């Protein structure tokens, strides 16, 4: 690759597309022969946190009756204290903008400390029931801790934990695998409404944060969660046998598509845009089937099959246009 990369910059220079100064700068940089292990080592830190916390979690789960409770709790508390001690020591304090630790390791200590805190509170609740029968509170406290950590130390991973905690408090499971896999409880009516409300609240919080310019780079994460929660809840309910409820959620889906379509241009976020149009396309198709479900098509069956390729060609042309348009808009 080196050979071809050198060739390419040489060609760019010869075509007059980069200046001689730039070309020389590039040559000097390349002669340093940098081989960066940045991503790899960060990934190691990350994996180590995941391994360690999973190990601790299983350890507690398996030995919940044999080792003394006080022993486990105090051991956890010590590790948590050590983690947060280093975090606070190296942190520059709360800032509204995006901040970074000088030492990359600290970021992962925040994550470890936070996950362990959640385990600690969960264990405490399981054993001593400080929150009594208020299971919601036992979810809410770790959520608040996570939100605090996420905002104070500026940590996106912790923020996602906090959002899943918030959803769990409402009664939803929004981890990626449940969103994609079996989310059968969206079929329960009240949960669908709370999902939509939660999504709207997340959007409102994003708009407010943007206004007071508080950690604006978190916006995309909030919006991503909001988009998926609202859209999946709405699409599941489009299949509701009560046509009235289905229509309500069709309106919800339409509104969310409109908002997120605008928002994805605003944030220049392809990851939002793609899912917006996919959800809209799926929702639209289901809606068409709902509208025509009572009409007998058996006579026209052949015609429909023959027409499908044309329909898909049309969809493809539409999508190509949409994507092209998006690329053009965000390039400005």
């Amino acid at each position, binding site marked *: *690759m080196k050979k071809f*990369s050198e060739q390419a910059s040489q060609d760019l220079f010869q075509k007059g*597309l*980069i200046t001689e100064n*730039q070309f020389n700068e*590039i040559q000097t*940089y390349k002669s*340093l*022969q*940098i*081989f*960066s*292990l*940045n*991503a*790899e*080592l960060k*990934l*190691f830190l990350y994996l*180590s946190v995941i*391994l*360690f916390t*999973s*190990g601790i979690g299983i350890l507690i789960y398996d030995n919940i009756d044999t080792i003394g409770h006080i022993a486990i709790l105090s051991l956890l508390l010590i590790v948590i204290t050590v983690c947060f001690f280093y975090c606070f020591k190296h942190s520059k304090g709360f800032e509204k903008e995006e901040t970074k630790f000088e030492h990359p*390791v600290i970021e992962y200590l925040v*994550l470890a400390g936070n996950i362990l805190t*959640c385990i600690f509170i969960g264990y405490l609740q399981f054993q001593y029931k400080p929150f009594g029968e208020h299971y919601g509170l036992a*979810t809410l406290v770790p959520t608040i801790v996570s939100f605090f950590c996420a905002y104070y130390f500026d940590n996106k*991973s912790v*923020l*996602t934990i906090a959002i*899943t905690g918030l959803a*769990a*408090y409402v*009664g939803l*499971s*929004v*981890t*990626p695998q449940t969103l994609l896999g079996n989310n*059968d*409880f969206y*079929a*329960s009516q009240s949960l669908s409404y709370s999902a939509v409300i939660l999504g709207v609240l997340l959007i409102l919080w994003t708009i407010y944060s943007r206004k007071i310019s508080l950690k604006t780079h978190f916006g995309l994460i909030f919006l991503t969660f909001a988009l998926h929660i609202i859209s999946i809840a709405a699409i599941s309910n489009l*299949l509701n*046998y009560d046509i009235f409820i289905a229509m309500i959620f069709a309106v919800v889906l339409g509104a969310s598509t409109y908002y997120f379509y605008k928002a994805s241009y605003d944030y220049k976020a392809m990851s939002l845009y*793609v*899912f917006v149009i996919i959800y809209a396309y799926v929702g639209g198709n*289901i809606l068409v*089937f*709902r509208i025509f*479900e009572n009409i007998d098509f058996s006579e026209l069956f052949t015609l429909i*099959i*023959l027409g*499908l390729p044309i*329909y898909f060609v049309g*969809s*493809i042309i539409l*999508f190509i246009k949409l*994507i092209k348009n998006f690329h053009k808009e965000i*390039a400005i």
Partner: protein
Amino acid sequence: MILFNKQLLDNEALNDEADKLYKGGFIGKKQKKIIEKELPVLKSQHNILVRLGFFLLGSFLYSSICGTISLLGLSGENVFFEICCYLFAVVGFVGAELLAKQNYHNHGLDDAFILGALLNLGIAVGITTDGYEIVIALFLAAGSMFMFLRYLYLWAMLVFCLAVSALLFFGMFEFGQIGKAILPFVTMIFAAVFYFFTKEKIKRLKVIYYYNGLLLANSFCLILFYFSCNYLIVRELSVELLGTDVKPGSDIPFAYFFYAFTLIVPLIYLTQALKTKDRIMLWISFLAITLSIYTIRFYYSVLPIEVALTFGGIILFGIAYFSIKNLKEKESGLTFRPDRINHSDALLNAEALIVASAFGMKPEVKPETSPMEFGGGGFSGGGSEGNF
């Protein structure tokens, strides 16, 4: 043999370089725009999500075309079932050709047609030969090589590598017991020979077009080499294929060789990767090390899983911490500083997603109302498949 306009392909390489330079901060945004305007390229999608979306749409289109053909052919004789997959494969080849003529390359649509054509080719040959593996592998290898050479399609190279390996395996099975017994060694030699062959080819390469495909084949050989004599795989396969039962206290023949191989090869990969600054080899070595640890744990689990996880986490943390400490201040060569030209932080962006999957909180109380039956479930995604 390449269908695409060479000028456009050259521009593609230059544009990629310009993109890297822009991300590294060597050139400005305006300059990059000028370069993009000056050098027109093929229609491709760099965003993986968009490409996946178009791949899905392309698959829908492909299967709907096949559905139409089936509908017309269904009224015919039984013969249709024997030739239908050939017809579908032809549809795939024609579609790939048409898309490539329109300058679609790595766009998602062409992925659907090329992979669909190969899949149908495999099924068609399978039906004709009653599932004779060697012939299927042979046809697949030929088909995928054609796809790679003509459309420069990278994944076709992967299909080719897999098909050739399958050809080797099933060819060895033809020799009966002896063939099965010496399979690991033959595979090892095969992988080694092709590794050096592709490496030499890459060195001699004058133009960039085939570079990525050769690199893929090269990496595939590295992986195949490690797998060929990994203790876990050899032992499980020998139980499976030869029917030998490994009793406690006994071991498979040449066990020490396989143990040594399992332990030494990942380390050789690691040191070689760091020495030659080869990132792909580095990643393969990480995976190989993981698999080696798993191999040992599979037969000798000294520690219970939770203790192993906890200590593994601590050790990994230590390794990463001290490596960072040592490499942090270095300005050249091996370093912790992010490279301005070759970013590899796509993985780090997925971090938050992994955390949410692994540690996301779930509601403690399940909703009491049972999920109600919903009526129109059968309509979901109706008509997206061509088979009925």
